[in-house]
């Protein structure tokens, strides 16, 4: 699988209140959440965003609240993937569970600039910066996470597991 898009660059410790402020958490509708994605953190985002764009951020992306609304808002807005130096733990889990592709690469997070065109080759584990020609590797997806992805998300994974149980 390949993911290609234009980069929005953010700093470190982008928290879940910045991704989706709590005043919008009286709904879980993905479309509505998407409309407010990053609106406090980056006022330029709602107007300038194009579907398929990529987030590149520093350390500890998604820190703070456990709200799954954060990756849901990012995914529903049309962001194709997030590349960061590191991810906060709960955000990391949530992103896999709902099928938002995320990649840890300190080099890419450091080196890629706002507006760069980037191509992520998910299978080979390589991020290509098409603007500068540089390439970076990302940390391999843990095998168990790959099983979740292969099942089509955690819910399908659990449903399969329950089926297996009831057949025993």
């Amino acid at each position: 699988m390949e993911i290609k898009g234009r980069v929005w660059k953010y700093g470190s410790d982008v928290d879940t209140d910045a991704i989706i402020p709590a005043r919008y958490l009286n709904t879980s509708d993905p479309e509505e959440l998407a409309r407010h994605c990053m609106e406090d953190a980056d006022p330029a985002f709602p107007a300038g965003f194009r579907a398929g764009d990529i987030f590149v951020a520093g350390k500890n992306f998604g820190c703070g609240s456990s709200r799954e609304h954060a990756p849901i808002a990012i995914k529903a807005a049309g962001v194709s993937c997030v590349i960061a130096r590191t991810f906060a733990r709960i955000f990391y889990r949530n992103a896999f569970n709902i099928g938002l592709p995320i990649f840890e690469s300190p080099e890419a997070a450091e080196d890629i600039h706002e507006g760069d065109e980037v191509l992520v080759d998910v299978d080979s584990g390589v991020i290509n910066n098409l603007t500068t020609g540089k390439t970076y590797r990302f940390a391999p997806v843990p095998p168990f996470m790959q099983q979740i992805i292969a099942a089509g998300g955690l819910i399908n994974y659990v449903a399969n597991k329950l089926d297996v149980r009831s057949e025993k």
Partner: protein
Amino acid sequence: MPMTITEKILAAHAGREKVEPGELINARVDLVLGNDITAPVAIKEFEKIGAPGVFDRERVALVPDHFVPNKDIKSAEQSKQLREFAREHNLVNYFEVGVSGIEHCLLPEQGLVGPGDLVIGADSHTCTYGALGAFSTGVGSTDLAAAMALGETWLKVPESIKFIFDGELQPWVGGKDLILHIIGDIGVDGALYQAMEFAGPAIEKLSMDGRFSMCNMAIEAGGKNGIIAPDEITRAYVEGRCKRPYKFYKSDPDARYARVYRYDASQIEPQVAFPHLPENSRPVREAGHVEIDQSVIGSCTNGRMEDLREAANILKGRQVHKNVRLIVLPGTQEIYLQALREGLIEILVKAGAAVSTPTCGPCLGGHMGILAKGERCIATTNRNFVGRMGHTESEVYLSNPAVAAASAILGRIAGPWEVL
């Protein structure tokens, strides 16, 4: 093989003799929880699984606490989803407005979490229960949905970091100050994916309420869980309260830690974390002149009896500054009632505080004390991110209840020694 307390609890719930950091395990859960923000998403996902029912109707707790009593129609719809799901599945531990409270104050108080338990909750501050010697951690809604169906969850065994506090705590210094000091030292991702184990003579003397405050904020350092080995103080709290059998675990003396930090508790002063990260902590004495518009005392971090007693002790016979709104939120109905019995509510109201029914309310910028552009608030809550309590150009400063009370009186960030 020697193990830490976290590793022992995880091993026991995975049906294993031992576990090692980095291993992925499937672990049985003793309790799962969700609130009025996270449970609606979990319920939707749960229904997609097609499970016959929840794994155990006594072990799924739903606590509407963030936007209750409901602030608008949409949040009322969310609470209604919880209520209907609880009825449909005959859940024992659904807590309605009027008997409820802030989830992380409520569940330990109700004896639903005990030492040695493994708890996951769709709320990042689920790590609070480590104060009881349990392994507990926050997850998202989909993980909650899966655990509601299976009664188990997958976890990566974390490395542990040990924080040892020697010496005696200074006056006006509590669990909140210790954890703010740690976060200031290691940063908001200083314990990313790791277990934070608090130990040492100062921790052994810390009250249960102080321990809850400390473990509550493990997530603010990126930690997977915060944990304190249970002892006689824990036993006094859980005895006669815990609804299930519990077990005391402790780390082996030669257990392995990724890092060990050692602090002299007697050198730690009351802390205040400046905007916009909890890691911006410094002693209150070094805060300088910072005028405030609001002071909030409450939350899952500091909404317990000891916190209210501390605040009332400072506010007794004094008045909130004319430029300040003081909002006090007892953590649960039981805490509210006890505060009434002790005369604390009367002291607070006479001082000019607005005392609210239990709710997370302003902590996450939900309701009951939202900040306008340019306003400043000192709060006993846990996060001071940009826009956390309202406008993106408002500011939140984090402190313990005594500092928040003294600041409310003086209209600026102040230590309790300045008013007593």
